[in-house]
């Protein structure tokens, strides 16, 4: 791939994601103060010692933002990886096995998707105890329904191609067909889908935290920080908007990269008869 063929918008996206991941990895090194350390008065304005001011309990907002990147990205990424693995395994199984297995998985998936994700999450989280791994698991399972749908469609698309038929006529086994014939031809759309799921997970996690059902305090996470500081808004204090902007920026960056990946996939398809 030619680096110069990557458009500016995708470079912006890549840069934004890199900064966020850097913050997440080296949070203790970069952050000027501790995650839970009360360092000054409540809602101090930006400037001076506190670049972005302080929050509703007098903690440094910038430090919490950096630590928050850690929690938000880790949880969203874990949920995405999990949902993706689950969705892909089930969808490829369904597509290759066909018949009853396919019918059963697909109909169950339809049922899961008949309930809006957020509503489903609210109902389930109302019952389950509040643990980080339960949160990740719930997000992953709910999201895997969308991955299943895409994965099955993509796999079926490729599975009916004649080169797959040719491999079957040669006598190749399922493993070869899935990993050597189908998978390489589905990587591009699936990579784009992974990005989409990741962006969705960030937004979803933030929404849950904002509603008080995601990450529990005092751990810093962006959605929770909005919730903590939202009462300042009516006094004209913008502390709640800063983590909100961070969420939006990261989601935009991911979407910019996804947009480019999708265009690339479709131009490959259109331009060269490539699957």
């Amino acid at each position, binding site marked *: 791939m030619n680096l*110069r*063929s*990557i*458009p500016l918008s995708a470079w912006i996206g890549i840069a934004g994601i890199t900064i966020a991941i850097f913050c997440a990895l080296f949070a203790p090194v970069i952050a000027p103060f501790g995650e839970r350390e009360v360092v000054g008065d409540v809602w101090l304005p930006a400037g001076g010692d506190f670049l972005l001011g302080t929050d509703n309990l007098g903690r440094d907002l910038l430090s919490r933002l950096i630590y928050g990147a850690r929690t938000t990205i880790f949880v969203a990424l874990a949920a995405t990886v999990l949902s993706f693995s689950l969705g892909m395994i089930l969808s490829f199984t369904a597509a290759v096995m066909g018949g009853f297995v396919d019918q059963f998985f697909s109909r169950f998936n339809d049922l899961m998707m008949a309930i809006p994700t957020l509503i489903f999450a609210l109902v389930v989280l109302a019952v389950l105890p509040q643990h980080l791994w339960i949160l990740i698991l719930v997000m992953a399972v709910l999201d895997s329904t969308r991955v299943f749908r895409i994965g099955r469609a993509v796999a079926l698309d490729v599975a009916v*191609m*004649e*080169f797959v*038929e*040719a491999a*079957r*006529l*040669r*006598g*190749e086994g399922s493993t070869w067909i899935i990993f050597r*014939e189908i998978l*390489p*031809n589905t990587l591009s759309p699936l990579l784009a889908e992974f990005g989409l799921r990741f962006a969705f997970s960030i937004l979803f996690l933030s929404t849950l935290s904002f509603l008080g059902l995601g990450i529990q305090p005092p751990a810093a996470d962006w959605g929770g920080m909005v919730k903590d500081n939202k009462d300042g808004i009516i006094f004209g204090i913008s502390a709640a908007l800063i983590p909100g902007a961070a969420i939006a920026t990261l989601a935009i960056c991911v979407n910019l990269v996804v947009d480019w990946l999708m*265009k*690339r996939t479709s*131009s490959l398809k259109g*331009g*060269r*008869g*490539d*699957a």
Partner: protein
Amino acid sequence: MPESSSAKNMLLSVRNLKIEATSYPPGEPPKTVTLVEGVSFDLEKGKVLGLIGESGAGKSTIGLSALAYGRGGVRITGGQALLDGKDILTLDKNGIRSIRGARVCYVAQSAAAAFNPAHRLGDQVIEASLRHGIMNREEAKKRALYLFRVLGLPNPETFGDRYPHQVSGGQLQRAMTAMALCPNPELIVFDEPTTALDVTTQIDVLAAIKHAIEETHTAALYITHDLAVVAQISDDIMVLRHGKTVEYGTTQQIIEAPKEDYTRALVSVRQTKRDEAPDQTGTQLKIEHISAGYANGFKVLHDVSMHLPKGQTLAIVGESGSGKSTLARVITGLLPPTEGRITFEGKELPRALKGRSNDELRRIQMIYQMADTAMNPRQTVRDIVGRPLSFYFGMHGAKKTARVKELLDQIEMGTRFLDRYPAELSGGQKQRVAIARALAAEPELILCDEPTSALDPLVAEGILNLLLKLQEETAVSYVFITHDIAIVRAIADSVAVMHRGKLVRFGPKSKVLAPPFDDYTDLLLKSVPEMEIGWLERVLKTRRMESAGN
């Protein structure tokens, strides 16, 4: 140039046409390519000019320039198109609109896509006449009815009440011709109007079009890749290649005395014939009483039997829906038959793919119509051809590479193609690689499913000659599935004619393709256009005589 014609009768005069297109590959600067350059021709009132060429010759682009229209990023950047002495390329929007659909009309290759699915056929046929104020609704309806009759459409009185999806492909193509003729235009551009049709349908549509334009004295640009078709309908022919004129002359001169090598090749392309093998007694492949259908109970094949001696070629010929491709799927085991059995080298083959051993699979290989989709786009030629070697014979390393190179030599492609991806090959090269992949398994029988029908005629001829050469070298047998009688003549030893899932006729080529015929084979053979002026009239005449005799 055809003999000069008087300026008074001149309808369309194209001078030094230049057409360019700009593409926008994502992330790269826009690219401009020249599609057509330096093309000039003259068309008199009431005459037909045939534009002929392979894909990419620019013939459709030239045809659309007569409507001052460019598809996608296509722009007409130079030259003139004088319609009755006035250059339509310099007209403004309204000027162009007043010509399109009124004085010049267009018939697309796929009428199924070109008709709006939401409206009745009749309304669409008369729309242009009404909008341009050429006639009122009553007159337009009357003219549509007259045209439906001329074009031989069934129930012309009520035909216009139907929706596009309610009529057949051949009827739609004729309806589109009626739509073009309705406003009484001076010129119609026919863009491959019969290419998507079966031969037996093609002859009817062709005859209808010819009759209708003669009847209405309309001039036409007839675009096609099939010289035999255009020879039936046009007065002059222009041969195009890579956007440039190769040869331009009267139909008689082009067909009977072509001057350029390229034209000569096009004229003689379908004339290869091969004598059949004299001894057709052995049976390598034996198909006995095969019936097959799909899971929903739809039966495609009914009690089909045929056989093939070792080292020979069996051509299975039929139109779409005849079940010929289904038969190939049954032989491969992809679609287990519901009845009957298949014997190969004296041993009955397991019905389903799963039941066959690797060696049984190795001995029967397959070549597809679309080499594009038959090869994994993420594998190089080396991987594609090499896989059967390692899979069936356990070859690897230098030995495998050496064998792949040998196979590439055999298909007349150099070793420089070794590390190319399919997307980097031309259509003909792709099909050659697909043949090499089949050969790599050292098969005894290769099933060829229309391997040349998606290729341009000269490229297709190259593939056929290669297949014949390989048969001499390796004594491999072919089951060759095709809709093209010319190919049958060129390569077959024995022939099976199929129609609607049944075997109509089977035997040595000399017997099957000689009278006395059954009705269907007769129709099929007579429908194949021949490279001969006046063929269409002759066939229609004998048809009329036969129906009068009955």
